[in-house]
């Protein structure tokens, strides 16, 4: 990296630094919000660290200490790869200060490289939280030599580089292919979806390949074998493992060297095509062929919902993050109809002793886990950004505005949620009354997701973002919406499965529906209060 790259990277980091805003902002409310966000994120990191330490201790107790380094490397790598794939489009391409940066004396490769480094630095808190926690678990059970600690920590900094580079390169290829086409946003989104699906399919394929059928009965050995076999496919995990366990200098050099080399190599083609791709992505010729046709009128709420729909389809990043759950729901629904549900459950749950009947009350929650983890209502208030003046200056009340936004989330989620629930119910031969109750529960979950998302979106609205990724993936509104939602749903799945063994299934679903409906109603009331 030359001096100009450091100047640019430093500025990119500073321009999105909450500390910089806190330091120079005069608005006390804004300062309070920054402190709140900081506390929220600290709690989140602590939860993540606690979870990882817990997992590591679990491995330790099961005498699987030796797989901890490889497990750490694999976890960090998978997360780095997936998150980068979702972010590449917004960070490397299509960013709003492109004109300003490209008119300055930076080579395209420098701009792309710095944008990558920015993504990398921003991902470090997550990476370090996971890795440090696993190191703690490893230290407790393996009592390693003192040199293991610095080696582990230093190599952790390199672990995400290779997967992030690969994900960026895939993002680059997708952008390059779609840039020259007319419907570039849609094609970019579809290609990214396909890649994500391919990765998930690959994950299952690798796992199937990595598992030794003869030892399937021994679950612990199976986990251990899976990790070891993945290491044989994904070499950086093996390099990390050997470096940490055996202090293998050659493996240390391999991990560091390949990371640096790959960084240098990948940004040569990216730099060469960077201007051309961005030119194509950012330029739209006006066809000037429009002929006046009869127009339709819509209600204010529907009109806002339509605006939200166009906002979503106009941004591949938004579409990928907001629509992935819906796509997965369709696929899982179809898979449940086509394949035998018992074998699907066995595959997903690694042959755990769970029957389809046990999962009956959890079906809506499983679908909700796919659909409800992203609510557009948590995103759209902030996404208005500099365009907020448009809705502010129109003769519509805040209530109408947020009703429109909530309506869009319902339009987006309800059809897919009902479809997914129906497919699973049909496939699992759920009794009709139970299936009906499950659909009602699903609707209540969609309503809750919409309203709770809206509460988070309004309460943590941030209009001064630099890149829409900050709103779609990294905002406090999204984090506060998603994480409690995710953990609660996971806990509820386990709870209803256990309760189902002792209680009437329909009664469980009715109770759950009542609780979710109450939460949805309370959240909606909160939205009304916030929009008064």
């Amino acid at each position, binding site marked *: 990296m030359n001096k*100009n790259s450091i*100047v*640019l990277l430093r*500025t990119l980091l*500073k*321009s*999105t*630094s909450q500390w*910089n*805003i806190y330091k*120079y*902002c*005069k608005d006390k409310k804004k300062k309070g919000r920054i402190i709140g966000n900081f506390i929220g994120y600290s709690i989140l990191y602590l939860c993540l660290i606690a979870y990882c330490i817990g997992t590591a201790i679990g491995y330790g107790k099961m005498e699987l200490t030796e797989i901890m380094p490889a497990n750490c490397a694999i976890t960090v790598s998978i997360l780095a790869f997936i998150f980068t794939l979702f972010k590449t489009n917004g960070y490397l391409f299509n960013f*709003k*200060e*492109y*004109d*300003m940066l*490209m*008119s*300055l*004396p*930076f*080579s395209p490769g420098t701009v792309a490289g710095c944008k990558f480094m920015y993504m990398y630095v921003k991902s470090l808190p997550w990476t370090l939280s996971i890795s440090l926690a696993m190191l703690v678990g490893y230290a407790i059970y393996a009592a390693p030599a003192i040199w293991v600690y610095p080696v582990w920590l230093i190599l952790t900094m390199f672990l995400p580089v290779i997967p992030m580079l690969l994900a960026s390169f895939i993002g680059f290829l997708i952008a390059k292919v779609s840039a*020259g*086409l*007319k419907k570039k946003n849609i094609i970019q989104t579809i290609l990214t979806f396909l890649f994500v699906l391919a990765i998930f399919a690959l994950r299952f394929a690798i796992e199937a390949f990595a598992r030794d059928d003869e030892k399937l009965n021994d679950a612990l050995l199976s986990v251990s074998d899976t990790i070891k076999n993945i290491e044989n496919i994904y070499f950086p995990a093996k390099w990390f493992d050997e470096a940490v366990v055996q202090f293998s200098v050659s493996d240390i050099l391999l991990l560091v060297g390949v990371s640096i080399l790959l960084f240098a190599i990948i940004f040569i083609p990216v730099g060469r095509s960077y*201007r*051309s791709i961005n*030119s*194509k992505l950012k*330029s*739209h*010729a*006006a*066809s000037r062929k429009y002929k006046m046709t009869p127009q339709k009128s819509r209600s204010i709420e529907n009109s806002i919902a339509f605006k939200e729909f166009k906002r979503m389809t106009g941004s591949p990043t938004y579409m990928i993050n907001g629509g992935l759950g819906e796509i997965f729901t369709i696929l899982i629904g179809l898979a449940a109809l086509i394949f035998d549900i018992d074998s699907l459950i066995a595959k997903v749950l690694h042959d755990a002793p769970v029957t389809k009947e046990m999962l009956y009350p959890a079906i809506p929650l499983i679908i909700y886990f796919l659909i409800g983890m992203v609510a557009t209502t948590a995103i759209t208030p902030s996404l208005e950004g500099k365009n907020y003046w448009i809705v502010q200056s129109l003769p519509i009340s805040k209530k109408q505005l947020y009703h429109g936004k909530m309506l869009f989330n319902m339009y987006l989620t309800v059809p897919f949620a009902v479809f997914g629930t129906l497919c699973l119910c049909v496939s699992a031969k759920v009794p009709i009354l139970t299936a009906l109750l499950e659909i009602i529960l699903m609707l209540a979950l969609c309503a809750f997701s919409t309203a709770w998302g809206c509460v988070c979106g309004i309460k943590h609205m941030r209009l*001064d973002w*630099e890149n829409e990724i900050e709103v779609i993936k990294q905002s406090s509104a999204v984090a506060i919406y998603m994480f409690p939602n995710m953990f609660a749903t996971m806990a509820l799945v386990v709870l209803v499965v256990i309760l189902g063994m002792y209680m009437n299934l329909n009664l469980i679903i009715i109770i759950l529906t009542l609780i979710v409906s109450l939460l949805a109603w309370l959240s909606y009331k909160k939205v009304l209060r916030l929009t008064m």
Partner: protein
Amino acid sequence: MEKKKILEIKNYTKVYGEGKKAADNVSLIVESGDIYGFIGHNGAGKSTTIRAVVGVLDFTEGEILIDGHSVKTDAMECKKITAYIPDNPDLYENLTGIQYLNFIADVFKIGASEREASIKKYADLFEITDALGDLISSYSHGMKQKLAIISALIHNPKLMVMDEPFVGLDPKAAFTLKQIMHDMCANGTAIFFSTHVLDVAEKLCNKVAIIKNGKIIDTGTMEELTGKKSLEEVFLEVQDEQK
């Protein structure tokens, strides 16, 4: 002072994916000391041409040279001597004004004392010195425009490219900018800018090009183009002739 070609656009053509020509065989020369106005209706191809000149936009055919360097093959050399002010500057909103100016000064490797003097001079002229410690997100559109102008001036460019630079500026700032443009030209800088304000172009520019539907339909010195007519009359005439 001897005139030197600073910007030379030769047969520049930009075709969008859909096959539409946003710029069609555009050629013009801006020499040192020129204030060159680029005028045309909305969507005529002004911004597309300007963005290609400053190396932001790729182009299909032709050549753009800045001080003899090709924008296509020698972009870095071109950018080192060029300053660009877009019509709607996207600055880093969460930096303070002074942080942003320091970033630009760092990129152009301007020494501490030189940048301090330059920033002070132009910030005083545009009356935003007091606001330099505030976040850019708190600036009005005009203040952001002033900051973008200062950032373009601090490295003494050979070529100044501006897209609608007077939009959003208050009358005093607009007057200051015109003064600065005159001073820069006297020192040999070439200025190439687009505008819709024909009165400004007429009073400020020594050369003008009129673009319509991506094609240059008239170009020359102000005297050659207007004769005894006003630039507005000439503009409307040539626009109508091309219909």
